[in-house]
């Protein structure tokens, strides 16, 4: 069980503080913040999420730039506490619509009420927004989301796809009523895939992995049952074959997951027969299913780098990136980064003629080249040339002292695993109004790296 819970801002201000057991001395928030801030003398490097100072154990997670912290004196389950901290953040977000310092401060009475219902004497009671609804009496004061930078999955969809998506939908509170007192009947099902790929220097794929989530957020009234149908040919488990000999299944079209798990509300009665998930979605945002896949997949981008020495104190880097997905799809917010040798002093860039929405930068402090692209249309290719100047001779080590090249991007309406929601059925004896159903796909880079 935990002793205290608190939320600190990035500057270390106490936004929320609740002591459940009175066994940890008062100054714990300051002790914690100092420890985290100066974990290494230089202020760099993250503190581990669990540590002990003077007999007090501190747990923390970072959510939306805020530090969610719990303390305890006893030998608790650390995964329980860390998971709990994540869930508290999610519940608060469900209630407030948007989670940030401002919304927390504006709703502190509600937040304290929530905390008292979520935790009693340090024990978790419930973190289900649905269950909490019957015990919570305060109403949220919704912060205007439009002016705020968007966060998390919601943010992903708002970029670049404004026409199709009602941007505010996912930042609205689960409990608050819309102006006019009526809630819009809608449900969001998001298939979010984070992909990690490592290319060897010769362009060969060393590792590739997809971490996927089917996330749901329901604003339906009357708690109807939902049925989600996935690919018929979906199979789970690599059947004892090792990770080293995957590849034989690629091209056959079937989707093979290494492992998956489900939210507790999901009934799997028909899953083995027709790959459908049945559930009565509780209020609030929650993952219906998490899955993991190492089956070979088509990587969305290919990265090519060429480094040429041009005299003892000069070199040229040529970066080529090709989008390997269909031209109907456009990736956005692409950033390519490449560490350069420490003795690099100056970099000049040369973009393709007619390039738009490109940014280039040389980060002097950590000697990093950064190339940003607003949009990247499927099937296209972009090139960047960079001329480097060195302060000392490189002794032929440029390649060893540069890279690897890493890339971040977001590709809406695209998923690498080919896992699909074939249909989304709402069992509702509805009269006239048909609820809005949003099934959205997005692929994001987790660790997308090309070695030199």
């Amino acid at each position, binding site marked *: 069980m935990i002793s205290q819970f608190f939320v600190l801002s990035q500057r270390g201000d106490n936004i*929320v503080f609740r002591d459940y*057991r*009175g066994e940890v001395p008062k100054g714990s928030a300051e002790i914690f913040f100092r420890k985290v801030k100066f974990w290494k003398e230089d202020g760099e*490097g*993250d*503190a*581990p*999420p*669990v540590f*002990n100072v*003077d*007999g007090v*154990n501190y747990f923390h*997670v970072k959510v939306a730039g805020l530090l969610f912290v719990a303390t305890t*004196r*006893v*030998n*608790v*389950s*650390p*995964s329980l506490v*860390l*998971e709990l901290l994540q869930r508290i953040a999610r519940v608060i977000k469900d209630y407030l619509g948007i989670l940030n310092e401002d919304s927390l*401060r*504006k709703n*502190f*009475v*509600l937040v*304290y*009420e929530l905390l008292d219902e979520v935790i009693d*004497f340090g*024990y*978790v*009671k*419930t973190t*289900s927004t649905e269950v909490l609804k019957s015990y919570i009496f305060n109403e949220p*004061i919704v912060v205007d989301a439009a002016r705020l930078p968007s966060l998390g999955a919601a943010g992903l969809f708002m970029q670049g796809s404004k026409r199709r998506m009602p941007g505010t939908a996912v930042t609205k509170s689960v409990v608050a009523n819309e102006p006019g007192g009526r809630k819009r009947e809608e449900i969001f099902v998001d298939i979010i895939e984070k992909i*990690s790929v*490592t290319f*060897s220097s010769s362009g060969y794929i*060393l*590792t590739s*992995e997809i*971490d996927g989530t089917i996330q749901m957020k329901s604003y339906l009234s009357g708690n109807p049952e939902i049925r989600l149908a996935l690919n018929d040919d979906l199979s789970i*488990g690599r059947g004892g074959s090792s990770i*080293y000999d995957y590849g034989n299944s690629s091209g056959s079209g079937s989707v093979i997951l*290494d*492992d*998956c*798990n*489900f939210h*507790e509300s999901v009934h799997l009665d028909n899953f083995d027969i027709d790959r459908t998930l049945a559930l009565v979605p509780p209020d609030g945002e929650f993952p219906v299913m998490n899955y*993991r896949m190492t089956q070979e997949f088509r990587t969305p981008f290919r990265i090519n780098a060429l480094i040429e020495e041009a005299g003892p104190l000069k070199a040229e880097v040529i970066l080529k990136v090709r989008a390997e997905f269909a031209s109907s799809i456009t990736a956005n917010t692409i950033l390519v980064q490449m560490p350069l040798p420490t003795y690099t002093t100056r970099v000049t860039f040369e973009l393709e003629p007619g390039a738009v929405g490109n940014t280039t930068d040389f980060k002097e402090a*950590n000697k990093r080249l950064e190339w940003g692209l607003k949009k990247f249309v499927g099937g296209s290719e972009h090139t960047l040339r960079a001329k480097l100047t060195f302060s000392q001779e490189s*002794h032929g080590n440029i390649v060893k002292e540069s890279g690897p090249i*890493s890339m971040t991007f977001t590709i809406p309406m695209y998923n690498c695993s080919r896992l699909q929601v074939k249909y989304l059925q709402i069992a509702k004896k509805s009269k006239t109004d048909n609820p809005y159903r949003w099934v959205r796909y997005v692929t994001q880079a*987790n*660790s*997308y*790296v090309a070695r030199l």
Partner: protein
Amino acid sequence: MSGHDSKYFSTTKKGEIPELKEELNSQYKDKRKDAVKKVIAAMTVGKDVSSLFTDVVNCMQTENLELKKLVYLYLINYAKSQPDLAILAVNTFVKDSQDPNPLIRALAVRTMGCIRVDKITEYLCDPLQRCLKDDDPYVRKTAAICVAKLYDINAELVEDRGFLESLKDLISDNNPMVVANAVAALAEIQDNSNSPIFEITSHTLSKLLTALNECTEWGQVFILDALSRYKAADAREAENIVERVTPRLQHANCAVVLSAVKMILQQMELITSTDVVRNLCKKMAPPLVTLLSAEPEIQYVALRNINLIVQRRPTILAHEIKVFFCKYNDPIYVKMEKLEIMIKLASDRNIDQVLLEFKEYATEVDVDFVRKAVRAIGRCAIKLERAAERCISVLLELIKIKVNYVVQEAIIVIKDIFRRYPNTYESIIATLCESLDTLDEPEAKASMIWIIGEYAERIDNADELLESFLESFPEEPAQVQLQLLTATVKLFLKKPTEGPQQMIQVVLNNATVETDNPDLRDRAYIYWRLLSTDPEAAKDVVLAEKPVITDDSNQLDPSLLDELLANIATLSSVYHKPPEAFVTRVKTTAQKTEDDDYPEGGSETGYSESSAHAADGGVSPTSSSNVPYSAARQPAPAPPSPAAPVPDLLGDLIGLDNNAIVPVDQPATPSGPPLPVVLPASTGQGLQISAQLTQQDGQIYYSLSFENNSQIPLDGFMIQFNKNTFGLAAAGPLQVPQVQPGTSARTLLPMVMFQNLSQGPPSSLLQVAVKNSQQPVWYFNDKASLHVFFTEDGKMERGNFLETWRSLPDSNEVSKDFPDIVVKAEATLDRLPASKMFFIAKRKHANQDVFYFSAKLPRGIPFLIELTTVIGTLGVKCAIKTPSPELAPLFFESLETLLKV
């Protein structure tokens, strides 16, 4: 509701408190609610709004749940500081606990449990009794947790009122969440109790396994953690349990998965069928790997646990090494843990892939990570013989990039590789020597020097290389000095030419005369002695074949690993420390500890008890424990001659016949506990004096022991004391007989007080001079602890104590915190009276225990002592009142030594 809550934070020009008071007493409900919100807002930012207690409590009687909750929140916060007013709320609580609305019933019993005021606790029992049997499961599950709260406040009350039985009944409740909470409460109570309260039988087991399938994710964790303490009767039962638990591995909540893994691992120990075990390992792998897709914080916890699991069952993840490859954007704490697991899973089959990864990591930006990656390559080389050569070639590639810290780290691991595979890879020494002048870290330097010394015969210019280090010998850190010393000796033994001979003289001189480091000096003297007596023997010793090292891969000790595996999915498994190493929560029912042992002062003299000689009385021969070899020898069977000479190893280095070193072990027979050494033999030319002030039957003595480690008999002892705070002086002459070499004498010198008073601030310092007829005068410092002087008649009657306390002005009160002292009630009570601090009374005040003691100094100076401890935390606060407050620092000094045992 109107506007934003943040408006409650804004202050008004008028006095805030009176304005709030007015609003709290408003006739309008909404205004009152807003006012309470403002009060709570002020409370959360740390303002003191306790003066509004009555006004807020008046708002408690309301049907409005929102308002009620706010008032309760306020109550929990301030009840402790206003215990008398808090009692006003009791009636409402009791009434609410019978409200038709289950939410109000639960709220009342939940809040009452959070108010840690004794008077309220009494009223809590009846409502709690009722709520434990409530019709509504929400009320029952809240009441279950409340029992744990009550146990924390008053354990006896819980036992007396039969709450434990009610709680156990709830294990059979038809609502799984009630079961889960009852389990959580019982587990906590068991943790804080020494008697068996919560024991899982096969009957409860089946109930809990049923509830497991139905309750919420958090309840599942409570139940799994409680069940992990259950020891299955046989393999069949273990298999049954595992079968019921395995579906939990599919849960989206990482805590559930990890607790299920713990449970399965534990039952697996009992399962004999290899097929079943293999199958279970296969089932556990994917969920464990999936934990690594969670947030980095959870990944870290999972990795620390996996580290333990693969040490016991390496097969589970043997084929999954790829998932532990570091991602570019992993936080550093995740990367470090992944690296550790990669080393553990590295095998001949995957080493090429692994090396490719390590090599890549070794060129990253984070210095700590790079170092660890380089070290990882070395560890793989040591672990996998067939891959050693590949590992070395990767290390050489890295050295060629000439990044300073990479080179240094590589040299450190290469030294270990040489130890692991002697006479195999020495061809690379030349490459290593190229980097010699860039080394600036002690460990790297020491490693390089070791390599040069070890392979001196193969390095043509070994003498030149070593010589380059010698100039800076005095400035080098000890680690490097030691290696330089050994390497030079090796060089000399291998190449006994003129150059090395000169070097060895410089080194030995530096390492004996010019150094303060005893380790270095000892080693140098041993080499010196060896070289001067028998160079061939020196070769046998110094150039002996070294045992081949093995890969440790940070393996844990098997018994510790067992304990940690039993603690999978707890903090213990993250810190890799047993729970008692970091859990400092002081148990409310502390066991009585054996505290009659004497303080360990002066234990370095190494006495051994021997009843056969106990009758010898006051003066008895003791072994000269300064003779280095004696510790390892058995006591000599025959009584040795008391005049046996004690050879001084360091006295005469050259030309001493080795046969002359005859151990003179004699069973030691101290008459009483060892005394602290005040004058070590090294200072006293072989005379060691141990001494301590003591009090016996009201008389103060200076207890002294003289131990003669010199070669001559000593006699004619005299003693004198410098002026001191207590005016201590010898009451008679020091009576010590002649002390033969190798023996010791003990005496009790009666002392008087107030003879020899010093001026100035009080101090415990006691300066003593001792002389004898053979040696110069020895001066030493001792400490006069205040408690030695406390008199027998220091006990006060309670009434007298109170009166004296009141009669002394507040300026005579001094207090001090001792943050790291743990006070166990009984132990403290027992220990202090032995030092004539007498127990007066104990008081419980909220979560504090307060103890009162009295003591008296000669001439009737009383000390009134108050010790305060907060239950569940470390540290003690001491306040004293005395007519002589200037003695307070001495008192605290004394108290600290008494309590810190």
